[in-house]
């Protein structure tokens, strides 16, 4: 009897075991994601994928800090005390620089993401996906991919080109050579041409269009000194009538209200959030003055205007106050305040600070620093992309380091100045009416008198102040050739109020930056001579 019980028990256990473990027990699809085969069927789903590559998630490694270091400090427009960044000021950048590896990573990450999406969407079309939905998204990816290679070619010169990272990863062959800079530029151009062909005429604000591609191509042609094409592409943008200068220069840079305004051809899209990290614009803390810091908004002015740039403005240039804060600069809406102590009282310094700022933020180099003053080495602070002390204090929303203002990578003013420069071409000067009109349009907004004759020097001076702190000046210097670059750089004052500092001995090898040391470790071919990418 007992034995029988036990065997019944045994049979029951056995049956239960076998029943519980069906084939599907170890087949567990993702609980939190969709698969490519059952997704990317609607325009929203597809566009929500390319959306990521417009965001700070992709770009912030370049846009935050590297852009200041490469585009501005190196070019003599900004000054810094930060140990990681002073080598850019003194032209002693080494291959181990964090800023170099961060920006390198950011550009190639955009390349990886766009390449993977292009492959995914092309496969989806091959599998019967809706080409009308998928093809414009592929063109967006080509735009972004072309744009990053344009940056790569300008920063590093000869550089690797990768189009299928997944396949390379699985083979394990990471020996990818550097290709000639002209080939990298050509690759970027071809990507932009694919974008130009596939992008729509118009789209919702912020999304790139055919004309965004044309604008970027115009700039690229200019760097190739292909003035005819540069002029033609700039003209196509001007002629489209879709873009114009935004009337208030200063307002473009201090509020996300003017995101994707009429002047924007391409902008990194930001959302004011900490999650996911990088989605927000993080220039507010690195540029804003510590006297503007509140519990909502971090500020530590890592980068400041250089003494040299402060002398570059013509009198009464409205762009000066739009670009930097100097003694007397104010913003009535921003009312930063210190919080009370736990017992509700204020320390004497905090009380004085609150009183000083009660009618709005004042940039003041005389006031005690603990009571609202600002006293840095160049007696000035960058205003562009500083959106203020946070919502509680009369500004817009700021979450710690993050704001929601989009960063304009190319705006219509650039198109106008490209047009003028391309018209000038190799000539010493021009009086071309359309070129002058384009050029003077930019000056008129700045409240400056018009010019009757244009020289390259005029255009370069205009570009410097128009695009100050937007990361373009280093490229403007270097594209003029080594001799001119050396002359510009060695003449600059890279010091502070207490002393002039000049860089001497600028050499040709500093025209391009070194490839990050960590990359060379894993890809020793990067140390070798560049190769052609195109066979002809």
């Amino acid at each position, binding site marked *: 009897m007992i034995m029988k019980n036990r065997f019944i028990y045994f049979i029951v256990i056995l049956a239960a075991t076998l029943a519980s473990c069906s084939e599907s027990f170890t087949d567990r699809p993702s609980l939190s994601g969709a698969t490519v085969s059952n997704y990317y069927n609607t325009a929203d789903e597809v566009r929500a994928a390319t959306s990521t590559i417009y965001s700070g*998630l992709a770009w912030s490694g370049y846009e935050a800090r590297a852009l200041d270091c490469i585009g501005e400090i190196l070019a003599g427009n900004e000054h810094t005390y930060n140990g990681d960044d002073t080598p850019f000021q003194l032209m002693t950048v080494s291959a181990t620089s964090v800023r170099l590896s961060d920006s390198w990573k950011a550009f190639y990450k955009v390349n990886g993401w766009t390449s*993977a999406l292009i492959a995914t969407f092309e496969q989806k079309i091959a599998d019967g996906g809706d080409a009308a939905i998928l093809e414009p998204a592929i063109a967006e990816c080509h735009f972004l991919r072309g744009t990053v290679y344009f940056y790569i070619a300008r920063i590093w010169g000869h550089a690797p080109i990768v189009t299928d990272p997944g396949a390379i990863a699985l083979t394990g062959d990471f020996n990818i050579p550097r290709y000639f800079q002209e080939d990298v530029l050509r690759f970027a151009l071809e990507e932009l041409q694919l974008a130009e062909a596939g992008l729509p005429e118009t789209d919702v604000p912020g999304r790139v269009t055919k004309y965004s591609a044309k604008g970027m191509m115009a700039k690229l042609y200019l760097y190739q000194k292909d003035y005819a094409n540069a002029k033609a592409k700039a003209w196509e943008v001007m002629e489209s009538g879709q873009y114009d200068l935004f009337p208030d220069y200063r307002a473009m840079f201090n509020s996300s209200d003017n995101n994707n305004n009429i002047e924007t051809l391409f902008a990194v*899209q930001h959302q004011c959030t900490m999650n996911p990290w990088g989605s927000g614009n993080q220039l507010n803390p690195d540029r804003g003055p510590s006297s503007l810091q509140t519990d909502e908004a971090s500020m530590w002015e890592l980068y400041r205007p250089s003494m040299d740039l402060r002398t570059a403005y013509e009198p009464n240039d409205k762009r000066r106050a739009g670009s930097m804060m100097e003694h007397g600069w104010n913003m009535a809406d921003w009312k930063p305040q210190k919080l009370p102590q736990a017992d509700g009282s204020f320390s004497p310094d905090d009380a004085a600070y609150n009183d000083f700022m009660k009618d709005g933020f004042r940039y003041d180099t005389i006031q005690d620093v603990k009571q609202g003053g600002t006293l840095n080495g160049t007696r000035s602070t960058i205003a562009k992309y500083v959106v203020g002390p946070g919502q509680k204090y009369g500004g817009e929303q700021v979450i710690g380091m993050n704001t929601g203002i989009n960063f304009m990578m190319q705006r219509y003013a650039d198109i106008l100045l490209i047009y003028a420069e391309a018209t000038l071409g190799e000539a010493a000067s021009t009086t071309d009416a359309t070129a002058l009109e384009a050029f003077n349009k930019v000056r008129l907004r700045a409240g400056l008198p018009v010019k009757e004759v244009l020289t390259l020097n005029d255009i370069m001076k205009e570009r410097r102040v128009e695009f100050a702190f937007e990361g373009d000046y280093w490229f403007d210097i270097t594209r003029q050739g080594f001799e001119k670059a050396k002359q510009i750089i060695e003449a600059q004052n890279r010091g502070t109020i207490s002393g002039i500092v000049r860089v001497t001995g600028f050499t040709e090898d500093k025209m391009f930056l070194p490839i990050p040391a960590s990359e060379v470790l894993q890809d020793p071919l990067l140390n070798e001579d560049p190769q052609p990418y195109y066979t002809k």
Partner: protein
Amino acid sequence: MQNKLLRLTFLICLAAVMSTTMLFAQQRTVTGRVVDDNNAALPGASVVVKGTTIGTATDLNGNFTLPVPSDATTLVITFVGMDAKEVPITAGPINVTLTMSAEEVDAVVVIGYGTIRRSEVTSAIASVKTEEIQDLVVTGVDQALQGKVAGLQVMNNSGQPGGGVSVRVRGITSINSNDPLIVIDGVPFTNNNVENTGYDGLGGSDGQTQNSFLATLNPNDIESIDVLKDASAQAIYGSQAANGVILITTKKGKAGDGKVTYDFSYGLQQVGRTLDVMNLREFAEYQNSVIAELGSGYIPTEEFADPSLLGEGTDWQDAIFRQGYTMDHQLGISGGKENTSYYFSAGYFDQKGILIGSDFKRYSTRFNLDSQVKKWLRAGISSNITRAIQNVTLADAAESTIWWATLQNPLIPVRNLDGTWAGNYTVGGYTYTADNPVATSNSRGNKGVNSQIFGNIYADVIFFEGLSLRNEFSYQLGLQNNMAFQYEANIGTRSLQAQLYDSRNNSYYYAVRNYLNYNKNLGKHKLAFTGGHEAQYSYWENMGGKKVDLQNNILDMNAGGTDKLTWDLTGGKGDWAMESYFARGNYTFDDRYSLSLSYRGDKSSNFGPNKKWGFFPGASVGWTVTNEKFAANWANVMNYMKIRLGAGAVGNQNLPGGAPNPPYTSNVNFWPGPTGFGQVGTASTNFIAGIANPDLGWESVITYNGGIDFGFLNGKIDLTVDLYKKVTSNMLLFSTGPALLGIGDAWNDLKAPIGNVGQMTNTGIDISLVTRNISKPNFSWNTSFIFSHYKNVLDKLINESSSIDGKLYYDNYLITHTVPGYAVGTFWGLVTDGLFRTETDLANSFPQFGSAVSQNETWLGDVRYKDVHKDQVIDSKDLTFIGSPIPDFTFGLTNTFRYRDLDLSIFLQGSYGAEIFNFMKWQLERMNNVYYNQSTAVMDRYTATNKDGALPRFTNTNTNNTAMSDRYVEDGSYLRIQNITLGYRLPGTVINRAQMSNLRLFVTVQNLYTFTNYTGYDPEVGSYNNSIRLMNVDAGHYPNPRTYMGGVSVEF
């Protein structure tokens, strides 16, 4: 657990036999007491009339009363782990002293899905008993194993209460988690970490977020620990066993009267040593001198004109360290009646860390019950409920509390005169902006509350003698609440916003196991078989939110601001399932030859359709040489010798962090918040979460083990030596390459495909030596020595230039870089060759990273690097191997002395030959600005007037001096006086009056002194977040505290 069960069964059987015998035989009654060689009572010892089945067991006080037949002459007294003794039956009370058996050869060893006698073990298994670790000051049992088991490397990753512990069985098995499988009474735990939120959400660096899982369990409940070290032993656990298996058996009730135990200890903790940084006078002199060198653009600080007028300034290290404590209460109740035994306990542990902002509390209960329900059915339950509350301070990371405490300027006070926190100060035109670590630590926090419920229910059905079917159901339920918070506060001119991140993580796990056990002894043949089926499923989900502007700093979501734009809400879920079949056979012939074979097949949801199943065989043989006839006359010198050989394959499915779930797929995932055009109110932005690899399969580990066990001089000396080779192949790794591929393994990368990539080999030797130097009735001295050595080589990766990298400080600095041919975790950098001290040196210099010879670039006083690549330039090609974090050997030495009722143990442990990358030194000797404090070493830097200075010159333009180099690599060898404990057991006459059966008092000092040349806080650095990529990298390491503790154990 099993040995207790056996004993219990034996007693139950005896009792049954006795009750029948008593009725018939003519009888007299003998009484007596059984004690060990320390005169401590031995409860549960068996007392049997020789040649009969008549017997009994001793009670709690070691006493027995046994009716014996009138013709009986001799009693046989046995106790597990002790030598059996025969004593003549005499009229008076019979007092018997048992001594520890020579080699404990017949102790029962817990193995997977069963137990085995030590004499039949053919693989590498080490055992630790609770007595060996009971006096150590530990939060979790993982810490207690340090220096106790040969082949087991235990390092505290942080001195943080409840902080992470790296436990490595025989070297580094995997690039991913190296956590061994821990099985507690049949419940498996594959992940030895609990994760807290970290600090990066509040701004700045994250700190270590991986804390010890075992700290959340009460170590006082543990009876024994068995470590399965080689694959022939591990193979029964198949794909979960590659990192080794640690089997933990908790305490069970013993037959006899109920027993109440109470243990209490209290200890004070302090920091062992602090770093030498400059005081205010020294700093002022330093800044004056540096500004003179810098020239234009810098103005000397007027206040520093005469440094001798200044005081010492703030000692920031003194401000962040404090006296900590540990307090431990443990109440245990156990016993056994008739067919049932029980054990239940309640524990409370409280620790206050030596660094501000860190503490740990644990409440725990355990309940174990075993019952012989029917003759054919035994059933039981073991269950655990714990709740651990941990406050984790920001440590072991760049910009952590310790980091800032060494760098913050002595000029700045902790608090202003009006009592407010001091922050950035402007003195002499310079604004000092480094963080106030005391204020920050007081204003922010990371709290984890971790509740764990787990247990095992079993039923053993006995079909007939030798054959039984065991059914087990194991479960785990984890509830974890993590908070990262910041209070509204003012620190200098900086205002902090009140913020709260609050997340809940729920997880559950179950396993259903059914397996047959068959045991048969036929004369000289002993046969055992185990085989069965197991199904496991694991599920987790989490949800977290954030709010800011908390009213009154109340840490509750509802107290936060209502502006939804500042809100944050995230979630996630995942699961995993595995089905397995396993079998093991053991055969022993004549106690001379033993053979063990095992096999397991695992089918996991983690692998691609082409590679779902993994198969893991193991085999081992043993030969007990001393049981051969020819060895009989060796017995005087060598009484025991056994040779063991084994080989086996185990697997690993530990995936790299951030792997898609399941890992072989490419999915579309969604960002937790708005990105790009994904504004509030619109659909979430998506991204491709990985590149698919349907051929993804198991990581495989194959081990070969050869070992010899010796017993010399009749048990005076036991020596065990094991040699092993362990080959890990098909490692599960993201196939990442250089960043230019655009794919990677960071959270915001397009995830590289996970592949089976590369191979790694560990070869090593484990030695364990136990000597019983003196064994007199009143005095004994035993020594235990363990020695572990292994060599790790990464044989290959996806290609020769591919590497395993470790980065620090927001991932900006490459510290470790392992290419094939080197040990993992290898430090990578330039080799220094002194300084440029003369014009001739400069003239003969090679360009260093493109720098010219000039004041701003390479100049007098700069570091000269070796041209390793011999191409007359110093560049990234000259980066090379500059040190290894892996020790040549680690060791532990325990001496225990007993004199009458006094016991003394002295435990030393150490590590030899490992190097440490002292990243703090990089920061403290950086000399590139005039704001941060520096180590006093910078006072001896190169200057025009100190051309023999040991350190390079100050420069804020030439960054080459601070490139990663051997300048920061130090010898990390150490010998630590880990623990000295003096105990006193009160004599029986005293305690019996108080109705106690045992009372012991003890005092302990732990981590008394460390002999080392390392200049950081503590040479026991461990691994950052338990990762092999950052081992022995010191970025402001939370040092292990020194503890002075006293305690008492009472037994009623």
